[in-house]
């Protein structure tokens, strides 16, 4: 199996590459700790800020090691610091890296969607400036996309960018920025034209998170997590050279941005790992069974039915993800079909939290200070809807399935006139 690169040089055989990667990994990368679950929403004893920063530093360092080893940016052109190999090489590498720690937490959003968007829409100068730094772990990128009044409507952004000579002034607020408070750079969607239909007045910019006028606030979630941030932009200056894509053509950038964001569940050539299945904490089947034993309810058929339901739905989700992924790849389902596993997964995860709460009974709402797993059950229940909200609500998934997959009539839209005139409701301006 060999192939010819664009410049005519022979590419390394995938098997040989895999063997080389295997040897290098054994030599250079630390083993994964499957119990580590730092960045996932259901963690109850959420990491302190210092722990997050320490992990970020580890990620940067691991990314640097990959770069130095010649395994960063496997499908990225050489002139930007990549290896210019094929998706098959990346897939092989991802297979090999299983069991090793790797910079999982910066794959999204740094490589997808940010690097992917830069590769498609960035100027040569922008690419040369940022992509090597990304691949070396020196620039962590985040997404300034959602807005407080925006909900599921990405195209309804009201953060404004006003031209001022060869620079832009950005004003507004962004929210739900993962890693916002420790990221280095950002892609930012802003409105540059209020007198056209909403999709036609948007532009994408890049800017450093340290830009003057950019204020960052960590958002505390009900389970104590402070991963997400809200940003307030007050006359933030962005040189026109940092604009990504054409003025008012932001939606064509966004289409790809959102596409690349979705490839987190598989299919991206830019992501390393994707991999070590995170420990589901109290929701691991064995953990549920052990809890039931401890609570003396393991012989109770209702308890067993709950455990059986949890396991069944996790198996069904696995089958569904595999089957839909395969059907999309072979074209027997359109890419909108991805909304089905999203919907199923969201509701199954929410239900899983309810199952654990029901199984634990009073032990899931009051716990000894050192009983971390019971605390995870309690706080996991409080945050459970995050599974049906984050990354596009289950309601939006249902819309997509109905309208795009089943071809049912589209919802009546009241936002097709000039964006300036679109009703935004009494609370559109406030944070909530």
């Amino acid at each position: 199996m060999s192939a010819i690169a664009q410049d005519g040089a022979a590419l390394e055989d995938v098997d040989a590459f895999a063997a080389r990667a295997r040897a290098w990994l054994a030599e250079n990368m630390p083993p994964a700790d499957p119990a580590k679950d730092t960045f996932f929403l259901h963690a109850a004893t959420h990491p302190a800020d210092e722990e997050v920063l320490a992990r970020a530093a580890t990620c940067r360092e691991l990314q640097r090691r990959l770069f130095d080893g010649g395994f960063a940016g496997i499908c990225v052109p050489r002139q930007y610091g990549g290896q210019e190999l094929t998706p098959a090489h990346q897939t092989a590498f991802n297979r090999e890296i299983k069991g090793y720690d790797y910079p999982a937490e910066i794959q999204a959003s740094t490589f997808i969607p940010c690097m992917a968007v830069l590769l498609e829409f960035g100027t040569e100068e922008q690419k040369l400036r940022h992509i090597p730094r990304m691949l070396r772990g020196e620039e962590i990128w985040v997404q300034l996309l959602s807005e407080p009044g925006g909900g599921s409507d990405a195209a309804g952004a009201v953060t404004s960018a006003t031209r001022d000579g060869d620079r832009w002034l950005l004003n507004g607020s962004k929210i739900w920025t993962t890693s916002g408070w420790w990221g280095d750079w950002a892609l930012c969607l802003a409105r540059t034209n209020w007198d056209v239909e909403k999709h036609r007045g948007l532009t994408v910019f890049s800017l450093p998170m340290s830009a003057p006028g950019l204020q960052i606030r960590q958002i505390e979630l009900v389970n104590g997590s402070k991963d997400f941030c809200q940003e307030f932009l007050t006359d933030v200056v962005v040189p026109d050279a940092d604009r990504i894509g054409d003025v008012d053509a932001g939606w064509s950038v966004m289409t790809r941005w959102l596409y690349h964001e979705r490839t987190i569940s598989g299919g991206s050539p830019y992501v390393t790992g994707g991999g070590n299945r995170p420990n589901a904490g109290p929701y691991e089947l064995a953990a549920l069974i052990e809890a039931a034993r401890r609570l003396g309810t393991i012989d109770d058929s209702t308890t067993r039915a709950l455990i059986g339901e949890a396991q069944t739905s996790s198996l069904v989700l696995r089958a569904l993800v595999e089957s839909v992924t395969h059907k999309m790849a072979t074209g027997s389902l359109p890419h909108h079909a991805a909304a089905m596993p999203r919907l199923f997964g969201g509701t199954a995860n929410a239900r899983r939290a309810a199952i654990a709460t029901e199984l634990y009974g009073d032990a899931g709402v009051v716990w000894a200070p050192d009983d971390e797993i019971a605390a995870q059950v309690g706080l996991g229940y409080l945050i459970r809807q995050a599974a049906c909200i984050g990354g596009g609500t289950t309601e939006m998934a249902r819309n997509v399935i109905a309208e795009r997959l089943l071809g049912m009539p589209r919802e009546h839209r009241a936002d097709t006139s000039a964006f300036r005139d679109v009703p935004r409701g009494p609370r559109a301006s406030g944070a909530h």
Partner: protein
Amino acid sequence: MFTQTADQDLLETTTEQYLAATFPPERIREFARRDSTFDATLWKRGAELGWTTLLVPEAAGGGSVSGNGLADLLAVAFQFGRHAAPGPLIGTNVVAAALGRWGSGELHGGPLAQLLDGDATAAWAHAPRMGSCASAVVRAARSGDGVVLDGTAPLVESGAPKGYLLVAAGADEDGARSHYLVPFDAPGVRISPLGGIDLVRRHQAVTLREVVVPAAYRVGEPGTADVHDEVLLDLAAVLQAGEIVGAMERAFDLTLRWTRDRYSFGRPLGSYQEIKHRMADLRTQLEASAAVAEKAARHVGEDRPDARSWASAAKAYVGRVGPELVQDCVQLHGGIGVTFEHDLHLYLRRATLDAQLFGTPAYFAERVVRLVEADMEEGA
């Protein structure tokens, strides 16, 4: 939400005004950061509003406003739920009811009077479970004029520094148990705080090591604890249902407003039919929850023959749909709904806590079946 007399309306309104002024959501979040959430002055004022006397007979110093003290207290519990308010409302009232009905004169003069005045609060150690793991296990032995208690009550509510625990204890594990009232400050009582889902209603584990209480601190005839726990469980179930209905009402109300104010794709969220239908379902569940809680309060408060079925159905139903309703409200809010600074989780926490303590919804559904079986036995 309930059909009430003018006096009950007045009790509810004064309670509402007091809680709204004393415990606005920001205050609840602030309380959450404290070690203790009990404020003696605030609780005392609540007692003056009538929060502690309603389940106690007039002869024992209590008194209701409508003749059905449980129905009166339901409105107070409802407001506690609406404000996710701190304060050991349910435990104190349940124990006061026990003392009022079955307590000695000495208990009436001392602890009960303190509870009624708001100078002390009380916790009830009962924690019925489906599984084989018992909750409180306490042994009692006579010793001179008093009784020596040894054991643990692993999950009881925290309250005032001056507080009492009502616990069932027997000479041996399977024997007929009696209720004893234990002052938390008695020698040999050890307390360790627990974590939990509610921000302001706290709990603790209690260990009793050779704790001596006077014989007069036995509550009720010897061996009546199990029967009495069932009676008290009816009261607790109704009051918890009341709190949950309050939490549901507030969450629903916030969400209905949100669907009006929030625009999505140029239209109010509430103009989307799927949202409308969900709100209709939630509204119906809210009404049904209020209806069964009220009915249960009537029947239990009036000691009707089918009271226990109603109390059990109330907790089984409201405990099941209450937290789920609030979760749906979170979903309808989107991301903002899972932030600490939004109020919704206050009601989610309270509804979930009430649903799971003093018997889960599943426990009460099982209790409903036991009651039907008992009726069938009698009929046969």
